[in-house]
C-alpha cells in the first residue's frame, strides 16, 4: 500500500527537524543563526501539532500552531530588536563575545 503515509513518519520528521534546530543552537556562533535555529525548532513542534490534529481529527492542534506562529512573530520582533541593540553596543554578532551583562 503505497498510497498512505504512517503518522510516525511525520513525527520522526518533526523530531529530526527539532534535533537539527538544537544542533544549530549548539554549534553555530552567529546570534542570528542561533535565533533561526529556534525558529526551526518551533517549526518542528508545529509539524507535530498539525500531525496530532490529523490523528485526532481535531482542529485544536491547528490553533496551537497558529498561536505558536503568533508568539514566534512577537519573539522575532523583540529578538531582532535586541540583536540590533547588542550589535549597536558591541559591534559583534558572535555569541561567544556576548557573555556578560555589562560591556
Amino acid at each position, binding site marked *: 500500500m503505497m498510497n*498512505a503515509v504512517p503518522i510516525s*513518519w*511525520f513525527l520522526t520528521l518533526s523530531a529530526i527537524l527539532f534535533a537539527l534546530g538544537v544542533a544549530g543552537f549548539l554549534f553555530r556562533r552567529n546570534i542570528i543563526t542561533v535565533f533561526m*535555529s529556534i525558529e526551526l525548532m518551533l517549526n518542528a513542534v508545529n509539524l507535530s501539532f498539525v500531525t496530532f490534529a490529523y490523528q485526532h481529527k481535531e482542529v485544536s492542534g491547528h490553533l496551537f500552531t497558529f498561536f505558536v506562529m*503568533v508568539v514566534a512573530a512577537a519573539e522575532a520582533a523583540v529578538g531582532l530588536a535586541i540583536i540590533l541593540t547588542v550589535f549597536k553596543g558591541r559591534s559583534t554578532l558572535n555569541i561567544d563575545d556576548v557573555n556578560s551583562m555589562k560591556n
Partner: protein
Amino acid sequence: MDVILFLIFALIAVVCAINVVVQTHPISSALSLVGVMGSLAVLYLLLGAEFIAAAQVIVYAGAIMVLFVFVIMLLNAGAETRTGRSYLIPGAPLLVLFLGLLAFFVQRIFPDTTMVRFGGFTGGGPAEIGHALFTTYLLPFEVTSILILVAIIGAIVLARKEIE
C-alpha cells in the same frame, strides 16, 4: 502518490534544515530556513491543514523570515568566525542520543495504525479555524493580541535611536 509527495518534501525539509545548520553565512541559513518552511507548508496541506499552510507561508516565510533577512542585510552580517570552544564533544553525542530516544518512543507510542491520506481530514479550513478561535480559544486569542502589542512596544523601545 501521497508517499512520494511526503518523501520529496520531507527530503527537501531535512536537506534545507541541515543547510541551515551547516551554512556559515546567515543569509544562506535564512533562505534554507525559508525552504524548510515552504516544504512544511506542503506537508501541512497533505495533513489537511489548509489555513495553517497558508499562514505558514504568509506569516513565517513572508513576514518573520523577511524580517530576519532584513536585519541580516541591515547589519551586513558576514560569515561567522571561529571563537571560543567547540561544543561538538558534549553536544553531538547528546544530540544523537536525544534524537534516537525521540525516534524510539515515537515508533513505540505511535504504531502505524493511523495512516495519513490527502483529504483524510478536511476540518482545517479557515472557517473551522475561525470558529474555534473565536469560541473555544477566545481568551488565548485576546491574550495573544496583548502579547503582540507588548512585543511591538518592546521592539520599538529597544530599537529606537537613543534620545539624548
